């Protein structure tokens, strides 16, 4: 599959066809205009070539009508391109609900991926065909970019924040995964593959790993281990707010501002606890920056999610 010359990339996700249709439209419009200019320049160059040294062509100052035509027609076409592109982009940026969530960490120079049941992979991701997969991604060091050409998806993986991307694979096979954002010496080696399997084969593959701790279970363990549980009592009577049902909820801060308790907020509250303190609590939490790595942070977030989410707030 990976040998031989080809001029079209493989098309293996539900969005790939939509992106290609738009791309084809652009190609047709552009070939038309490039062809038009090429033909006109060639015809003029031949027809009006200088035949004698003292030729003096009649001047033409311009034509408002023509200027309007070649401003308005390209502008109208450009607006069609923009609108169509915006529609595709919004689809690419909006994962459908009930997606299977994969957690991705980029670091120099490898991809670490974790399945909802706890399976971990490096530079490889096994997914079932026909299932929507949402990627929640962050980086441990510099900016990377998760790029799967066959799915037509790409999203930067940025330290200090979570970015998301999604795809639904349409046919089984192996597809290349690239890091598309230059990330240092071995950037070109930060590659991998996405293995798309029939659902039954995927189930078998999952079972092959034996019993594995899920991210939420691992998170619960870390929650104990780092002593978080000492203050964040589930009944809300501790020195810190209860985390039950927190995820996706609107939280009021000491500054009277409100913030949605999403992945980014929880992440920040662990590594920089003083940044956004919940109203009614003292800023006493120590930072855990450098003590818990990105995997661990993701697991703690998974644990907090497992304590109940506020679906209504999240849907907004």
């Amino acid at each position, binding site marked *: 599959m990976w040998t031989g010359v080809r001029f079209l990339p493989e098309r293996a996700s539900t969005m790939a066809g939509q*992106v290609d249709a738009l791309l084809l439209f652009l190609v047709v419009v552009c070939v038309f205009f490039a062809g038009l200019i090429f033909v006109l320049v060639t015809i003029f160059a031949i027809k009006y*070539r200088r035949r004698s040294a003292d030729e003096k062509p009649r001047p033409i100052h311009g034509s408002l009508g023509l200027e309007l035509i070649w401003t308005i027609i390209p502008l109208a076409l450009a607006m069609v391109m923009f609108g169509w592109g915006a529609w595709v982009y919004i689809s690419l940026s909006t994962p459908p609900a009930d997606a299977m969530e994969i957690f991705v960490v980029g670091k120099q120079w490898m991809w670490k991926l974790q399945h909802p049941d706890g399976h971990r992979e490096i530079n490889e991701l096994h997914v079932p065909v026909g299932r929507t997969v949402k990627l929640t991604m962050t980086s441990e060091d510099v900016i990377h970019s998760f790029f799967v*050409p066959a799915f037509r*998806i790409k999203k930067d993986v940025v330290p*200090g924040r979570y970015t998301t991307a999604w795809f639904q694979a349409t046919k089984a096979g192996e597809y290349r995964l690239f890091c598309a954002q230059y990330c240092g*010496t071995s950037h070109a080696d930060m590659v991998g593959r996405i293995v798309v399997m029939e659902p039954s084969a995927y189930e078998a593959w999952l079972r092959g790993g034996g019993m594995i701790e899920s991210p939420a279970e691992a998170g619960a363990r870390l929650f104990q281990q780092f002593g978080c549980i000492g203050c964040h009592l589930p009944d809300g009577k501790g020195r810190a707010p209860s985390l039950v049902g927190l995820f996706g909820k609107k939280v009021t801060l000491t500054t009277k501002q409100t913030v949605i308790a999403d992945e980014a907020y929880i992440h920040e509250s662990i590594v920089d606890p003083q940044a956004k303190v919940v109203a009614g609590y003292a800023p006493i939490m120590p930072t855990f920056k450098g003590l818990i790595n990105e995997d661990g942070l993701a697991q703690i977030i998974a644990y907090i999610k497992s304590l109940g989410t506020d679906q209504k707030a999240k849907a907004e």
Partner: protein
Amino acid sequence: MSTAAGEGRTNYLNAASSVKSWLLTVDHKRIAILYLVSITFFFLLGSIFAGMVRVNLLSPYGDLLQAATYNKMFTMHGITMIFFFLIPSIPAVLGNFLVPIMIGARDLAFPRINLLSWYIYVVGGLFTLTAGVLGGVDTGWTFYTPYSSTYSNTNVMLTAVGVFITGFSSILTGLNFIVTIHKMRAPGMTWSRLPLFIWAQYATSLIMVLGTPVLAITVALVALERGLHIGIFDPALGGDPILFQHLFWFYSHPAVYIMILPSMGVISELIACFSRKRIFGYGFVASSSLAIAVLGFLVWGHHMFVSGQSVYAGLIFSLLSFLVAIPSAIKVFNWTATMYKGSISFEAPMLYAFGFIGLFTIGGLTGLFLANLGTDVHLHDTYFVVAHFHYIMVGGAIMGFLGGLHFWWPKMTGRMYPATLARAAALILFVGFNLTFFPQFILGFLGMPRRYHVYPPEFQVLNVLSTAGASILGLGYFLAFIYLLWSLKYGAVAEANPWGAVGLEWEIPSPPPTDNFDKTPVVTHEAYAYDEVQPHAAPEVSRV
């Protein structure tokens, strides 16, 4: 006014010959020559880096260079070509030489500042060269954080200082042009009579003056974070890496227009001269330069559609990016219309103009794929982007620069170059360029990421084609370099107006005297009045 240039006549070149007379000159024409020599040096250097990149990519396994070396090569290729060749190329060489002459002035408004800007450029260049000699830099010309500010262990600081310093040379050149064009036009040289080359230089100067300080600030912030660990961009220090991208592209996208607008100005001059026609729709071509300069400041976010910036920001930046495409389209249509019922001759400069129209059209149209949100997600950071911006910066900017250089070479040096060789070089460059960069559009669409030292084997055939093209391209540049050098000594002596062009620069001897004009000219015609003005030295002698 005199028409032919006698060998013995005093001109700006033979007025004095000591090294000091060159290094301390305040003559805008001599400063243009100083710039020409320096940017040629950096162009050769940048070409060597590019050659290393292309040869390494002959094989998918990166057999020639180690990864770290390869990364330094493409980084230094970009930094050298952009900051030390393309940005100064047309403004500092052709602009310096021609802006005062074309508007009927004896020099720029601030001749000493003009010389200062060359020295600043040289000092910036020396810093960057030193960084190269000490082991180079590997951040990519884009210096993305936190890689550049925290993780790279190469000579980021020295390079950043070099880029920072060189920026001031651009600012001073821009300032000088703006003041000169406002205050020093000859009597009768109204705004609506300005040659389009001047309009383009004016628009470019606005970007240089308004945009470059932001680059300086950005680079300084990277240096602060790297040197003093002040958290600005690195999230580990409390910073935001996306902020860097906003600041960087706020300058660096308009910088693309610093590179292409002057070329557009050159092309207007060439097409008018070699069609013997007024430019069709002068007002539209002139104001489209200003429209590009203004809109160009509002589109930086199209470099960040997959960076994690908000969807709404993406929508607005995409819309504005489509708008900035329109003035470029207007220019291309007007140039084409100018040829209609003209008297077209195929001198070497005109061949470059044809090349420019073809390559810039492709470069501009492929930009639509990247302004488009839906397709950019797939194409971003792939070879499609590399191909697109080389069509603009090499196919557009360098073709324009070479076209202009061949057009005004007789004026600048007083010599003609061999016309047949020059036509051959233009053709070779056109073929070599397309063979180098067209395959990269396909590579990008197939998904080959840029800045890859090794790559999957299915991409090899197209990469080999690209490298083959690059060697043809190199041959074309080499040929032009050789016959231009040769012409300095052996070329036929140029007349004042070898092309039968109209414009003040063609009414004074080749090469011009130090003071340009014996007495201040009075302008009575619009630019390109080929129908009204009999060119002073109609080409009665056949042109080589």
